[in-house]
């Protein structure tokens, strides 16, 4: 699973894109994990997460926050996610999760320098880093960067290039706001790692 990696875009755009992944390690710490996942979601909501989801169940736009919490079992093996559109909220999230001391693994995806700085500010030593080396092979088959920057926010590829172009057309024609179009796209990313706040800005730029 590399679904929170390989998000493309400019540095300015990526400054508003932080994904938190919180998960159990199979065979090690699944017992009584349910309350920890619920706590994670409550902390994320308090810190203004713009999207949340459970990889085994669905995202907030299709399932709703209460149903995501209600689906969590006592001993639950999954990966859950929360997305933040600014560094301040992401930094508070990191601090709060650390202080909650729940013992599950946390992976933060974002600009390395920014995440590293957040960790240092809260006395956290990162364990491992995963680098995206970009896209190799027949890259001539890819759509333009403006489309890639939107669809790479769903790591399982649930959002088609055609759908992104259609949403940009809707925004351009004034039939949808960029924000509503972005939320529609977010609903297709089951894990809840799509960033609707950033997508709205990208769609608005495409629609110009």
């Amino acid at each position, binding site marked *: 699973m590399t679904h929170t990696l390989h998000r493309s875009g400019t540095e300015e755009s990526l400054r508003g894109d932080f994904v938190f992944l919180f998960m159990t390690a199979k065979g090690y710490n699944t017992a009584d994990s349910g309350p920890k996942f619920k706590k994670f979601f409550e902390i994320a909501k308090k810190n203004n997460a713009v999207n949340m989801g459970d990889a085994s169940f669905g995202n907030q736009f299709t399932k709703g926050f209460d149903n995501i919490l209600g689906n969590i079992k006592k001993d639950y093996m999954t990966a859950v996610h929360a997305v933040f559109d600014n560094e301040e909220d992401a930094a508070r999230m990191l601090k709060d999760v650390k202080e909650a001391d729940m013992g599950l693994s*946390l992976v933060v995806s974002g600009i390395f320098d920014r995440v590293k700085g957040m960790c240092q500010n809260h006395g956290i030593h990162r*364990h*491992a880093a995963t680098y*995206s080396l970009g896209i*190799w092979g027949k890259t001539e088959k890819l759509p333009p960067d403006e489309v890639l920057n939107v669809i790479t926010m769903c790591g399982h590829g649930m959002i*088609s290039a055609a759908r992104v172009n259609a949403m940009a057309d809707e925004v351009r024609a004034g039939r949808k706001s960029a924000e509503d179009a972005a939320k529609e796209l977010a609903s297709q990313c089951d894990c809840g790692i799509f960033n609707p706040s950033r997508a709205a800005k990208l769609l608005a730029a495409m629609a110009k």
Partner: protein
Amino acid sequence: MKIDPELCIACEACIVYCPMGAISMQDDVAAVDQDECVECGICLRSGSCPVDAFVEEKLPWPRQIRAEFSNPLVPHHSTGGGGRGTEEVKTNEVTGRLKPGWLALAVEFGRPVTGARFRDVDTVAQALAKVGVTFEPENPVTALMADPKTGKMRDDIMNEKALSAIIECVFPREKAPEVLKTLQEAVKKIDTVCSVDLADLVQPDESVAAEKMLDEMGIFHRINGKNNVGLGRPRYKGGD
């Protein structure tokens, strides 16, 4: 996935949802190109069809692997897990899978947008095997290899297509230049794209040796990536 031609009202609403572009109008009704369809189920889950014309059938072998690799809500028959890969380094502070002095490489075929046939996975896996990488045993692509030592995929799945499929492997750090150069050559022979990533442990001074190595080799890496911030417990033996 199929569309019942008797139910389809030709509204064309479903067409834009397909990430493979496999839905088109045929004889005035929407139809799914079965060779291009990766069984991701996005069309069905989108709720775009006003007359419920999608037909999701139980998939025979080997077509079932299309859904296992393309629909994150369908678990793999081989590993029992969902998604395409493993926990890899996301839980490494607990599992200790990636050891000091080793690097972890993931090659995700078909991502973004293009999808991939397993014959392309086979081409690259065999090339990587020749330079001595160790394929992740719990990865569902590894489970479909006829021989994980050679990277040869099963013959009966070669033409199957997935939204994406990931090779995960590890190798000693000193092998990295040879592995990455081999990968650069191997991808020239495939008919799709792949997203590539490299994972390493963070040193006590917060540096990452792999980053320096990539810069020295002139290999591009994005400014953003994943950070396992090390909050999981219990720590693996020797992981403190």
